[in-house]
């Protein structure tokens, strides 16, 4: 620890800290311009100059990068300091008249106007170099640098050309204290609600507000450190030293008795239906995006806005996007009707917009659902029965100018209609979240044709799978809404607990067995087993069935060329007898 | 094994020092001035000069200063040379031949003993530089 005095106040601080940090500790404010806590101090603007006396020697130094010393006496506001500081600020005012922080500082120092020549009244850059330093030391890209020297100095990419080294992270703009650097997204797709940032906003973030555990994570795709190996700004600001960039994905082996699969769903990718123009029209959004938009903690604070920030006057909600469609998914996604109705209700509640619901038929299956539908009918939501063919912005009438036109065959009227709206919400269906076929292989369970996991029995064992001890919960088994999921999860948990509590489970009675005396070890059966229940015992030269894994399908038995394999209760002899028995009559 | 040892360094120093002594005007044991005006050259001063150079070279002598000068004024007795051994008066030799100058070099320059028979006189004038 080092003891020093700042403006008469005694401060104790760890060695290696700067005068600026020491001053902050005793709440003495020293103005800075080129300083940023996460960027290495630069000492260029010279407004943080303080007068220090040590061992009888007095000097002016920059507080931002001068380390504390034992016995240091610091004056932050002496006449000498103020004189230098004022002059520096006054000179910066001439350099960058439009830079607000400089103006504020000047005001605080009592400078009204600069006596020096102003070259460009619009100039904002104070040449503090934060952008250059950030790009070099934090981003590691070194895409911009100073060129020229003296008063000609300016920040530029090499040769003033757009730099290939620039990764477009906009860190320079972020660090710029005066707003001298701006950027535009030239190459990204046409952003939906440019100002809303519906996607991830930062590389390090809490994924969602309801996340469990409620801790931030680093998006390695977006994090600068994973692009350039530099940055690590987050580690500098995290006092708890909780951030570790070197963490690797690791495989943990956990021994468990039961497993509940709840891998959930992912929304249908609306881009797969080009006719709906998702990704092309900024005001065609998916249900999830609308949820975010209408969320009180969302980017608009829950206000429903179009891409240009105005409120929509008409909104179309299209049901069954990607569901009940043999081109995509044949099944009904179950939840879309109800959430679409909720959207319609919310839009009615929050705006004065007309709401059109385009549906195939209304599936209001749950408790109170039908009543909600009726309520909406009374609220004036316009329900149009028919599948939307496409969405276009080609106006045919005055009324359609500047609108999105939904083309649909109204099956109740029997005509094709064109409905102009401002916003279209696509009620995207549900799909398994990850590659279920692969997951099914890992867990020795099956998928149904729609690739959702297959339960053991639709009625008798709806949360069980063919693998004992593995249970299903939620949308991984079939599209379902929250109440159903909760109910099923409860069931799965109960089953899992019951089994874990019991500690044992009954083996399938109908398993295969291999007669050691008869097996020649030809190994043809080994690969047949879908449950990897058969292994080849090299020492004995025979194949062996693991009873716990065998599900009793009998495929191996049918295939065993030497008749060494039997299926209990379905022996060859039993079936032969059955066949013979059939024809006894 | 280093490329150069201390001994090697000293040897290089000694050798080069000898070759460059004349630049620094260090201690000379003797100075020999061959008079090489038009008359001298015509009378064969070149031979005398060459003979002296050869002597210096063969004997690896570096502390004898060999210079030339213009006509000494005694053109009839050319080739002439003045030998000035350090601390002694200069001696002028006249009517030199290659043989004679070798003898003088041996006896006077190196040996310090004046070769009386060839000498014109002692202590006449000093060469400037």
């Amino acid at each position, binding site marked *: 620890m080092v003891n020093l005095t700042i403006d008469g106040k005694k401060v104790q601080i760890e060695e290696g800290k700067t005068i600026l940090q020491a001053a902050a500790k005793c709440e003495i404010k020293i103005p800075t311009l080129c300083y940023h806590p996460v960027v290495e101090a*630069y*000492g*260029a603007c*010279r407004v943080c*100059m303080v007068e220090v006396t040590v061992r009888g020697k007095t000097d*002016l130094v*920059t507080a931002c*990068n*001068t*380390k504390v010393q034992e016995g240091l006496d610091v004056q932050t506001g002496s006449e*000498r300091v103020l*004189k*230098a*500081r004022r*002059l*520096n600020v006054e*000179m910066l005012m*001439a350099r960058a008249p439009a830079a607000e922080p400089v103006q504020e500082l000047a005001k605080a120092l009592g400078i009204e106007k600069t006596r*020096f*020549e102003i070259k460009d009244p619009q100039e904002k850059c104070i*040449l503090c170099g934060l952008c250059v330093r950030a790009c070099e030391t934090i981003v590691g890209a070194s895409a911009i*640098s*100073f060129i020229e*020297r*003296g*008063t000609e*100095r300016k920040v530029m990419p090499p040769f003033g050309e757009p730099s290939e080294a620039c990764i477009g992270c906009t860190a320079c703009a972020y660090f710029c204290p005066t707003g001298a650097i701006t950027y535009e997204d030239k190459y990204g797709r046409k952003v939906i609600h440019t100002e809303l940032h519906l996607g991830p906003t930062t590389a390090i973030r809490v994924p969602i507000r309801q996340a469990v555990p409620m801790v931030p994570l680093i998006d390695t795709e977006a994090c600068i450190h994973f692009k350039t190996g530099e940055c690590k700004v987050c580690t500098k600001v995290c006092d708890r030293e909780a951030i570790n960039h070197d963490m690797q994905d690791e495989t943990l082996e956990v021994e468990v008795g039961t497993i509940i699969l709840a891998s959930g769903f992912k929304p249908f990718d609306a881009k797969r239906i080009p006719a709906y123009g998702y990704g092309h029209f900024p005001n065609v959004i998916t249900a999830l995006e609308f949820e975010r938009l209408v969320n009180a903690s969302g980017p608009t604070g829950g206000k429903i806005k179009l891409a240009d920030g105005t409120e929509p006057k008409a909104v179309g909600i299209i049901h069954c996007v990607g569901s009940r469609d043999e081109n995509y998914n044949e099944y009904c996604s179950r939840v879309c009707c109800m959430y679409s109705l909720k959207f319609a209700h919310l839009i009615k509640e929050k705006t004065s917009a007309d709401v059109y619901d385009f549906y195939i038929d209304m599936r209001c299956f749950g408790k109170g659902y039908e009543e909600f539908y009726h309520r909406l009918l009374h609220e004036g939501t316009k329900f149009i029965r028919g599948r939307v063919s496409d969405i276009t912005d080609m106006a045919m009438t005055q009324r359609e100018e500047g609108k999105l036109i939904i083309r649909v065959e109204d099956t109740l009227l029997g005509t094709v209609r064109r409905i102009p709206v401002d916003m279209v919400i696509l009620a995207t269906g549900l799909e398994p979240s990850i590659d279920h076929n692969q997951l099914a292989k890992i867990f020795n369970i099956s998928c149904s044709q729609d690739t959702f996991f297959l339960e053991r029995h639709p009625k008798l064992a709806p949360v069980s799978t063919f693998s004992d001890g593995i249970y299903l919960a939620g949308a991984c088994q079939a599209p379902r809404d929250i109440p159903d999921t909760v109910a099923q999860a409860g069931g799965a948990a109960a089953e899992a607990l019951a089994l874990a509590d019991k500690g044992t489970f009954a083996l399938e009675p109908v398993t295969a067995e291999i007669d050691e005396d008869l097996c020649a070890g030809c190994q043809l059966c080994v690969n047949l087993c879908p449950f990897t229940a058969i292994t080849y015992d090299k020492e004995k030269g025979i194949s062996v069935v693991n009873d716990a894994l065998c599900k009793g399908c009998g495929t191996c038995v049918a295939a065993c060329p030497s008749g060494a394999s039997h299926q209990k209760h379905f022996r060859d002899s039993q079936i032969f007898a059955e066949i013979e028995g059939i024809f006894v009559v | 094994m*280093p*490329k*150069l*040892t*201390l001994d*090697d*360094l000293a*040897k*290089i*120093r000694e*050798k*080069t020092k*000898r*070759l*460059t002594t*004349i*630049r620094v*005007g260090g201690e000379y044991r003797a100075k020999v*001035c061959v008079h*090489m*005006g*038009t008359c001298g050259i015509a009378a064969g001063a070149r031979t005398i000069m060459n003979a002296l*150079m050869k002597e*210096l*070279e063969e004997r690896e002598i*570096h502390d004898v*200063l*060999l*210079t*030339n*000068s*213009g006509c000494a004024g005694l053109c009839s007795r050319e080739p002439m040379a003045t030998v000035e051994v350090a601390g002694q008066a200069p001696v002028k030799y006249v009517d030199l031949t290659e043989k004679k100058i070798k003898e003088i070099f041996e006896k006077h320059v190196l040996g310090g003993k004046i070769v009386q028979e060839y000498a014109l006189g002692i202590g006449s004038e000093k060469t400037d*530089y």
Partner: protein
Amino acid sequence: MAEMAKEKAYRIHLMVCAGTGCVSNNAFGIKAALEREVKKQGLENEVLIVTTGCNGFCERGPLLVVQPGSIFYQQLTEKDIPHLVEEHFLKGRPVKKLMYTPPKEKTPVPVLSDIDFFKKQVLIALRNRGLIDPEKIDEYIARDGYKAVAKALTEMAPEQVITEIANSGLRGRGGAGFPTGLKWQMVRNAPASNGSLKYLICNGDEGDPGAFMDRSILEADPHSVIEGMVIGARAVGASEGFVYVRNEYPLAIKRMNIAIEQARDYGLLGNNILGTGFDFDIKIVRGAGAFVCGEETALIASVEGRLGEPRTRPPYPAQSGLWEKPTLINNVETWANVPIIIDRGAKWYASIGTLTSKGTKVFSLVGKINNTGLVEVPMGIALREIIYDIGGGIPGGKEFKAVQTGGPSGGCIPKEQLDLPIDYESLTAAGSMMGSGGMVVMDEDTCMVDVARYFLTFTKDESCGKCTPCREGTKAMLDIITRITEGKGTEEDLTLLEDMAHAVKDSSLCGLGKTAPNPVLTTLRYFRNEYEAHIRDRKCPAHVCRQLNVYTIDENRCLTVGKGCDLCRRNCASDAIRGAKNEAHRIVQEKCIKCGVCYDVCNFGAVKVD
């Protein structure tokens, strides 16, 4: 093993100066002519032609020194050579007309050491100048070269070396005069993180206008720098060194490269130097010639390949320098002093100079002075001695006004202080500094405001632009001074200028900015009246600031003597002169742009300036 073959002895050595100054005056043409003539006269076995580094008396180049005897020939042309060779080398008759004749005298001075310019110099750093061929290591060795390395490596412990340097009182010759021994000790003591890497740098980024002593040393005696660095490396425990030379010094780079190669060949660089097991090697880094790169932190940034801009010290390079390793950085001249201190001892060295400033200092003497050139003088010598004895005084019988030392970072010393002893402290007290050794002499025709403007223009242009006070301040000061020289200055400007000069000096990041106001401050201190004249009277006493001049035509003289030649009118760029041939002319002041052309073209002295 060095080649020990028997080498030929020559009776005459012709030391042709091949410093940059003489080279640009056709030294190589002279050399070629010499070779040609020597061959023609059949003297090739008797006469050795040697090219040497700068001799120092650049004013008189191209130079030739004939050994033995140190006959000094100067301002040679190729035409002179046949005669010279025949007369002097063949016939032994030195050619008087090619010798140096001091101003105001009639008789030439044949011997170098008898010339005033050389007489008062004490050569330590430049000890080998003109005596060796810088491209031949053997000749350096013959001059006791690498003796000090041998001593330092075999007979002395690193601490002893440092003590010796410390005791010698050697101080950094780059300008600030930091005690060299102390700096070495700091580097030696610096905890070497990451292994034991430490670096050595030789700062050869000589940027002061008119200063060329570093170049001269690198050209004339590169091995002395190498030897100094090896000793330094041994003392602080470094294994790699860099010589930072500006790219504008191609000859210095070439000679240094040759020297490094030779030293490597001899095992005086590289691994196991002289069999002592000590490893050290040197690389040359070429700088792009930014003045600020003479600042050590900027230089280090430049060596590292980054933008050459300074950073705040501490940490000092001795603690965290090149690639954040402890780095010993010394100026060329400092390094050149090291071997001789080790060889001849601290005591000997400390016997030269003053109490606080030991040894000698090389100055480049330029400006309004007769003997322009490079001089090495003992510390403590009076300014007057340098200017009048060595420098031969002011040309044209004009009056000495001031001398500017320390380059653009230094200050002007007025004639009242001519007896100022030259040492670090005195110069600083006088408001100037030792700097790297530039010495610009000014005579009565010099406007001190203009001088300040000149140096500020330089620092403004050379400011890297990193810190506000230096970047903006030099520009703002220059603007004010320019205003003053244009006659638009106010009293407030003077106050502001002084305030700014102090603030810039106080708050700039590096030495460049901290010293940039020195020319302003010293001229204000010693020549405030000149400023005031510019502001109050709108006059430039030296008539340098043309905007303040008033040109008039003595109509009488114009008509009577010049017969109204009309030359001025025809040359006037702004059509400000009225008159016609055979008429008296006059200047319409409103139209005059003060270009001074009329004054320059008038052959009859009819145009007056006031």
